[in-house]
């Protein structure tokens, strides 16, 4: 197991840098994980991250890409409710990269 250090505190991660103990996540950790992904977090990113975390707390899984785009579209306008918008924010894919930064487990399977 690997670990990262943020503000003097150590956090356990898996081989790919996903947080092992999801409860340990906080905004500083999110910022740190975003740096490791070369993603500069803006308010738009945080909108997505916060939605992911809320959804995860309710359903114990990240939302489907379609659920995410729909929710973002409702909140920020239909032009932003597209997977292209999400890929622009999280180039390695909204499911995997955004989940990682939001401190959610990596979606597995044929995705």
């Amino acid at each position, binding site marked *: 197991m690997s670990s990262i250090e943020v503000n003097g505190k150590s956090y356990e991660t898996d*081989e*790919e*840098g996903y947080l092992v103990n999801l409860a340990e996540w906080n905004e500083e950790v999110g910022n740190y994980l975003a740096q*490791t*992904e*070369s*993603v500069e977090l803006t308010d738009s990113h945080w909108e997505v991250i916060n939605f992911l975390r809320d959804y995860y707390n309710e*359903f*114990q*899984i990240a*939302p*489907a*890409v*379609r*659920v995410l785009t*729909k929710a973002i579209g409702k909140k920020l306008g239909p032009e932003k409710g597209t*997977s292209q918008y999400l*890929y622009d924010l999280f*180039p*390695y*894919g909204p*499911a*995997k*990269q955004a989940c990682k930064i939001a401190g959610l*487990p990596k*979606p*597995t*399977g*044929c*995705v």
Partner: protein
Amino acid sequence: MADENTPVAVAPAPTPAAANAPAKPTVKVKIEAPAFREYPTIPALRADAMIDPDPYAATAAHNEAMGFPGTLVDGWEQKAVAKMGELLGKYRSLKVYMDACVHCGACTDKCHYFIGTGNPKNMPVARQDLMRSVYRRYYTLPGKLFPKLVGARDMTKDVLDDWFRYYNQCSECRRCSVFCPYGIDTAEVTMAAKEIMHSIGVGHKYVNEIIGKVHKIGNNLGLPGPALENTLEGLEEDVLEDTGAAVKYPLDVKGAEVLLVTPSADFFAEPHVDSLIGYGKVFHAAGISWTLSSKASEAGNFGMFIGNYEQMQKIAMRVREAALELGVKRIVVGECGHAWRVAYAFWNTLTGIGAGANDPFAIQLQKQLDPNYKQPSHICEVTWDLIQAGRLKFNKEANDHRIVTFHDSCNVARGSRMGDYAGGQFEIPRNIIKAVANHYVEMSPDTTHERTFCCGGGGGLLTDELLDLRVKGALPRMEALNRIVQHDGVNFMATICAICKAQFTKVLPYYGFKMSMVGGVHQLVSTAIVLDNEQ
């Protein structure tokens, strides 16, 4: 062959276009697509090109949850050799494959991973020899007496490391076996190697974590029932909004006629979900009652990828249990390549859903299932039958913005069939596409039908740490696609496999293509189908 030699008009830059450039993932190697070749030739050898990165090892918890030792066991050398002996006795095919190869070389340049990487250990014959050399040492007289003379090797840690590395660089697609004069099936050798490795505590994280989720939650994604329900409700709203038709995406409905078992990626990912929307529209338009199951919320069966019969059976059994509980009359499998191979070729003996099994549950299921339909059926068979019966109407012009080609998925093409005639698995998906879209173009015949190339992500390799391998392994498919993109303006590659869809979405940008170029056959159906708008 002719168009195999047709020069590519304009080769796109092999590096990603700036707009779609994927962020650098957190693996050590720099991932680059190989340049398209003007004339596909046998690549120059690049020894050890793919020794980094290795697949992530499964944790002890993942292995133990499946009943395997958590970590490498004491005395693993002897135990691995003994397990090999057990498999040689159990699977006569494996023994034949170990003995029959004459090293003619016909397979060498048929593997997409060899073509893309140039690593000689990715030649199918070399991959088989990783096991064959050990087989010779312990199970043939010359190998026991004069190992060096016959290329026999002891089972050492170096050999085991090579096994783990290179059997996890085989997608079990079986293209090489099409060209083998003896019909040696490298996939079966790979599966046996994985079975042996698991028996001594060596597994691959991606696959074993997923199998654990299937047993614990019901699907590869780990999508719990309430999330599934929420997602399906969302789809109903979307389709109603888009079409005005109240298409249902039912879950756990007892007494439905059809149980649809589909990869969980269909609930979660793009473009997969567009095919799921399409299945629902087909059932709606034909007036067939159907349901999904939260218990069998996954068609995929990664037990096949690791060659483990018990896991494969345990995963398949969920479908039988769901079918019995829901009292359905038909079982239909969605767009998933290896799931269809398991369903078509193995369900019969695994769970008795087909004919032949004689335990009380199988007998009950036999009575329950409708003999007028193939059990199980592929969703493409269902749709094509309905089209032929005139029960579906299409507005083909709705797909006029697309110039479509079809990528045959390896496990459907070489591991199964559709319809009641040889080659149905090739014709039926194409027939559907031609019934719903006006513009269709074939890729080079050396890369389609039974000669199709794997997408590069099959066999349990669809994982981020192997992205470099996946990008390189996609080269021959990308070359064939590029030719018709340049020549015919093709802008949509349809496929019937969740792995193909996810793999292409990820690797297309590395070759300068848009990720949205890939989609499902039922995505095209969904676009063109005319629905009765009354609720």
